[in-house]
């Protein structure tokens, strides 16, 4: 048997026209950006978090369904159909205002969350930004004994913004069909 070519199962290295130093620097900057975003959420600095999005952002979490393998192309709902999040910047701002009223009861007393961001891959480079995918684990405890855990991945379009980035598009895909938490009163 011929020896398998280990590199054949890998996609073409993204940004392969760029040198390694450039790619490592970019990877570092994107990861630091995501860590800062996660910290803003976990510290409930929602205005800081909101400032990380472009004015024309679409923030979207479709509905996922258990489908047979031959219908897996319809596992997620399409844009324009039913979704859990389907937000413009204005809608995200409304959600943040709600959280800041002091009587947004699902978050008062506030939940404790920790956002872990991993497997960051910069897939493509545009004139003004990048396509980036990342995995997340959002862990939440609430009141005395409630515990929720969401794992999934995000597909972002990041736009260059000075030395950092803004999120111009975010798609969030959860590894659940029936959501097992009583609400989604937090962000991903």
């Amino acid at each position: 048997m011929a020896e398998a070519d280990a590199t054949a199962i890998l996609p073409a290295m993204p940004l392969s026209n760029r040198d390694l130093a450039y790619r490592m620097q970019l990877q570092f900057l994107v990861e630091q950006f995501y860590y800062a975003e996660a910290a803003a959420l976990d510290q409930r600095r929602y205005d800081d978090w909101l400032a990380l999005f472009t004015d024309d952002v679409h923030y979207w979490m479709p509905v996922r369904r258990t489908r047979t393998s031959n219908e897996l192309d319809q596992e997620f709902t399409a844009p324009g159909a039913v979704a859990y999040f389907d937000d413009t910047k204005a809608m995200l701002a409304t959600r943040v205002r709600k959280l800041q009223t002091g009587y947004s009861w699902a978050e008062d007393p506030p939940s404790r969350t920790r956002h872990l961001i991993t497997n960051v891959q910069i897939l493509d480079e545009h004139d003004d930004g990048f396509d980036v995918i990342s995995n997340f684990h959002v862990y939440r405890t609430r009141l005395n004994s409630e515990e929720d855990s969401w794992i999934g991945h995000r597909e972002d379009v990041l736009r260059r913004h000075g030395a950092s980035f803004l999120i111009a598009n975010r798609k969030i895909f959860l590894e659940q069909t029936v959501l097992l938490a009583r609400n989604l009163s937090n962000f991903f």
Partner: protein
Amino acid sequence: MHAPNGIDYRSLVDLEHGTVDRRIFFADDIYETELGRIFARAWNFMCHESQIPNPGDFFLNFIGEDSVIATRDRDGNLQVLLNTCRHRGNAVCRAELGHATSFMCTYHGWTYDLEGKLIGVPGYKNFYHEELKREEWGLVKAAKVESYKGFVFATMDPTAPPLDEYLGEVGRLGLSMVAAHGDVAVVDGIQKYRIGCNWKLAVDNLFDWYHVQVSHASSLAAGYIRRPPWTSMDHIVALGEYGHAIGGPRLTREMREELARQQSTTDSPYMDESWRDRPEAQAQLGAFGVESRGHPNIFPNLWIASSGTQLSLRLPRGPGSTEIWWFTILDRDMPPELRKSAIMRANHTFGPAGMLEQDDGENWDQSTRAARGMVGRRYPLNFSMNLGHGTIRHEPSGLAHIDTNISEHAQLWTYRAWTEWMAAEDWDTLRRNHSIPNGTV
């Protein structure tokens, strides 16, 4: 009448004082009885016909905790099949929705057609010696499957009354509030999530216009929901046999016009009520229905929400857990911009991330937990709002209703019907011994 477990169900709801015993929100034996005497007996909502337009299309739903497959056979007839192989009991369908030509059990390969007939048994000749009576080992089928204006319901009880009689004026009006929008179809995507509450607390809340100003105060303050034109002092509650009800504000023509003006001047979510003024809608709804902005519940657990553009099921998952499902259902001929706005409202308002609903679950969860308290359970819950002040009037159609301010008539009516369902041994008893809305409540 005492049930086999010795509980006098009628004593659990005090109609004179408007109180409800908290045992009904956590006791295991009561919950087991509910699965048998309510869910296995009632007409349960399965799906809308638009979800399964072609033979072989299927949608998985539940009757209580029993998984059922709603599908269409080769002749296009609606079928509801219990999703459990007759050999070892494994599920024969595992996807939530999709298309199939037959249902094969993945354990030993027993295979059933779209009518539930057992058509394939590996080893039928060599292992079973052709002695297995395949005609007796088809999937268990719903005793009756019927559709009203495209809404498919099924009952597991062959003695249940026809769907039309079961729904009565109130149930039919509830479904007509959806159908009257036009040629309606379910939008792709059913939101599903779990709350740690008893299912009845989630049902009781759908009639609750009292909690909005407190539970959802943050959404009001954040500017998500505008102050509606209706008033808390002019509500109408319709009560139907077997526990169906509609509760909520009166929506006058002036209010509809006011909403239309607001819609044209803001980018707030779809709040259009002008569909009620179309002659076809008025013919379906009647004068009462046109003015009812209330929330219908088809007993036990189907809420018609968002002025007939959404449906929500509250599915029991044990005494302390409920699965909430949201269907969005819209007129296929809606102008694209209005349709987009209606889907946005659905996506942003209800469901687990909904601006309103994210704050509901914790209330019901805590209510369920507290009911378990050895001391807490001794104190009943209070449903006395407007008790003794509700005069039931009848429309020429026979529809019974109360003109009131915000009240708890619909909730108490639901719990009253619950006791009657739980006390009745069978459908014949329930038919004889259930409340007819009359007098003052």
